[in-house]
């Protein structure tokens, strides 16, 4: 009902008539609604979904085995037989890049989860308790952070040796300070809210306060950082492989493929172009999605 009908109202009524039942509005649904309205965020999400599918169905998509060396077809430029060309051992770069998606996504996911459970937890503790606990944790993190991330990761690999678990540990340690800082900020923002005080007033214990009120309310911001960190992890992993620490050949990791191609940069630029593009697209997609999530969860903060 209304005082004065306008075309806009009819449009909305038509739209609502199509819907069967009015959807119950929860904070989560509201966020999803905002996310859906954001085209760039949807593009990001779409690309990420495609990448995940590619990773799952890599054996079906890839035309060749990523580690089979074909000496009859070395250093071939992109063609219909080899979409992205071949490398100096005759391996199909397209297949390697496709399989690389598996490594990049899975390792990045592990790294970020590990960072969340170490750095994130420290940040939450520091943010919640404040005072001396906060000071001690954050100063240790400051010391960590004063060492460049990549340098730190390299040192850890140097000590622990090459391999995927070592790489994950290295990236985790290197990204711990940032993760701690972000999560602490997220908790501090929630900590200052009136509803925390009102829960304190009804006698909610500290553990419950963190689990039931602070983490659920800070979760939105934490997810934003989480997605952002996936991009950072992929970058770090590739950079490390590129300079030859962490993973070893013949793992088809994007950084390693880049490394393979660097000697032939002038004669066969395609060898570096495609893996580099993949890294770029992946990070870009994660960042678009992260920005979309920020707008969705936190409409006030832009």
């Amino acid at each position: 009902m209304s005082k004065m009908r306008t075309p806009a109202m009819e449009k909305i009524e038509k739209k609502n008539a199509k819907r069967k039942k009015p959807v119950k509005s929860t904070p989560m649904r509201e966020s999803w609604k905002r996310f859906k309205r954001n085209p760039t965020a949807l593009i990001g999400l779409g690309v990420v979904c495609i990448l995940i599918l590619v990773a799952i169905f890599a054996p079906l998509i890839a035309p060749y085995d990523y580690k089979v060396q074909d000496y009859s077809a070395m250093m071939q430029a992109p063609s219909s037989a080899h979409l992205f060309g071949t490398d100096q051992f005759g391996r199909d770069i397209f297949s390697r890049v496709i399989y690389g998606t598996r490594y990049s996504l899975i390792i990045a996911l592990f790294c970020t989860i590990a960072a969340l459970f170490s750095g994130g937890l420290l940040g939450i503790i520091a943010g919640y308790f404040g005072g001396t606990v906060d000071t001690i944790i954050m100063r240790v993190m400051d010391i960590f952070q004063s060492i460049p991330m990549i340098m730190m990761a390299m040192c850890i690999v140097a000590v622990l040796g090459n391999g995927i678990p070592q790489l994950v540990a290295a990236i985790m340690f290197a990204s711990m300070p940032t993760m701690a800082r972000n999560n602490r900020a997220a908790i501090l923002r929630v900590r200052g809210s009136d509803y925390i005080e009102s829960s304190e007033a009804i006698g909610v214990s500290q553990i419950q306060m963190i689990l039931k009120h602070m983490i659920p309310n800070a979760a939105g911001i934490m997810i934003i950082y989480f997605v952002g960190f996936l991009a950072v992890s992929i970058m770090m992993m590739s950079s490390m492989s590129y300079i030859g620490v962490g993973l070893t050949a013949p793992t088809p990791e994007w950084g390693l493929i880049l490394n393979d191609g660097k000697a032939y940069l002038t004669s066969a630029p395609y060898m570096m172009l495609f893996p580099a593009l993949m890294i770029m697209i992946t990070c870009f997609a994660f960042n678009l999605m992260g920005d979309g999530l920020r707008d969705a969860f936190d409409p006030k903060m832009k």
Partner: protein
Amino acid sequence: MSNLLEIKNLKKYFSTPRGELHAVDNVNLNIEKGKTIGVVGESGCGKSTLGKTLMRLHTPTSGEVLYNGEDIAGMPMKEFKQKYRTNIQMIFQDPYASLDPRMNVLQLIEEPIKVNHKDMSKADVTARAKEMMELVGLAKRLEGSYPHELDGGRRQRIGIARALSLNPDFIVCDEPVSALDVSIQAQILNLLQDLQEERGLTYMFITHDMSVVKHISDDIAVMYLGQLIEKCPANEIFKNTIHPYSQALLSAIPIPNVHVKKERMILKGELTSPIDPKPCCRFAARCPYASEGCMEKEPELREVKPNHFVACHYAEKFMK
């Protein structure tokens, strides 16, 4: 008359980079059972801090708060939580910010019951929460709604239900109606009054709105920069205002009547800083009647006539 609460020399200082902030300074106050004490003052006068200190949301710097004769200010937090958390409750100022946005109405009202009665079965908790919803006038269909879907009045009803669900004797109402529209404000004030009559509640009603405080309170305490400067029965303060600050506060209220043209006492300047205050009358800097005597000594709260306490060296001068 029995005092439910006796506040003795209560102090709450905050340390800031610029010095000690005397948020609540040497407050003495008795609160009778079943009565409402109104605490008024401008922003920064320490009225909210006083309420939160009674709630133990702040730990007092020094002083005593006797609740039925037992000091609750000095007791360990754990003991306080066990013995008194359910007795003393609070209704918060901003119903928009004081409810967790990720919980629905029923969950919000169940929370205090769950937390404090761990032995209660889930069904009992829900039944009790529903009972509370009815008590404060929240319709049954709102059970699954989230705070963001409700208007200020209903949100404040949730806040009241949360406090009442623990069966408290004493409720600190921290500006419970200042964020609400006038027509909704009246609904909430009436609800608070009804609940008080039904359950014999004792209120500390903190507000900056003189007309609201006059309406709801039995006694009124005026605060200025952390100190109590005047305390008397509600009617008395409007008839025989003594402290110059209270006079100014009263004369500043715009009256919704076109024919009453008040002689207004406009104060110069603004609230001075409560950080490391000098030992003199804190109002002296803005007081139109201040003399040298005011700058030398801090006035104490004294009974100038039965039940009327004033902290002013020259209180007798202002008495009618």
